[in-house]
């Protein structure tokens, strides 16, 4: 896992939105992703490039179409390394409290 690349890739709202878009519907083309973003196609391509470099997005060619898939495997490694090890119990209490206060 290249943690620097992962955190850099996540440190941008457009790239986080791209991951959300792929989570909502996996296997989209560049064109489909661009429809949801108010931004030049070339900029979207660059953002996707950084996500691919961090292995957060993988691509598959289907005929002439390049499809993008969210790859959460590195996120799981980040979770194991940076979240799970720190006091799981307290996190779960805080999470419950937040849910209650926000009325979810």
């Amino acid at each position: 896992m290249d943690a620097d690349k992962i955190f850099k890739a996540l440190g941008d709202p457009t790239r986080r939105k791209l991951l959300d878009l792929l989570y909502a519907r996996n296997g989209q083309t560049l064109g489909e992703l661009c429809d949801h973003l108010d931004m030049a196609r070339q900029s979207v391509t660059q953002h996707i490039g950084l996500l691919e470099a961090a292995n957060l997005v993988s691509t598959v060619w289907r005929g002439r179409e390049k499809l993008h898939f969210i790859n959460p495997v590195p996120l799981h490694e980040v979770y194991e390394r940076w979240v799970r090890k720190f006091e799981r119990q307290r996190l779960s209490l805080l999470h419950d409290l937040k849910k209650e206060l926000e009325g979810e």
Partner: protein
Amino acid sequence: MSKEKTSFVYVTYIRSTPEKVFEAITKPEIARRYWGHENVSDWKPGSDWQHVRANEERTVNIVGKVVEIAPPTRLVITWANPSQAADPASYSRVSFDVEAYDDMVRLTVTHDELEAGSGMATGIQKGWPIVLSSLKSLLETGQGIDVFAKPKAA
């Protein structure tokens, strides 16, 4: 009309060899160490395979057929809940592609032909990232992670 299908592509890079990665998927004594399950088959095209929980109950959690096998680079299997094994439409497909990548191995797991929104689609989305992280951990450090771990109850 057929139901809408969905697919997922998972990629992980592992400091290991294609042979070791392939064995970790197909050899029960290795799979049980990072997956909590064994994949049991004679690994011939057309043969059955079973995903068996590696405990005393030996519950069969997934069944399917071996579609294609080319060690150490490619394995394709079908995948269904045993309770739906009689229904051909319930089978999805899992392809493992193993390629040498610099001094590492790039393992791609493609799970397709899944019914969109089904319990199986939800389940595998939670499962594969954990299993693949655990596989990477086992091959790189000699230790898998607990794939059944849950947050501690408050």
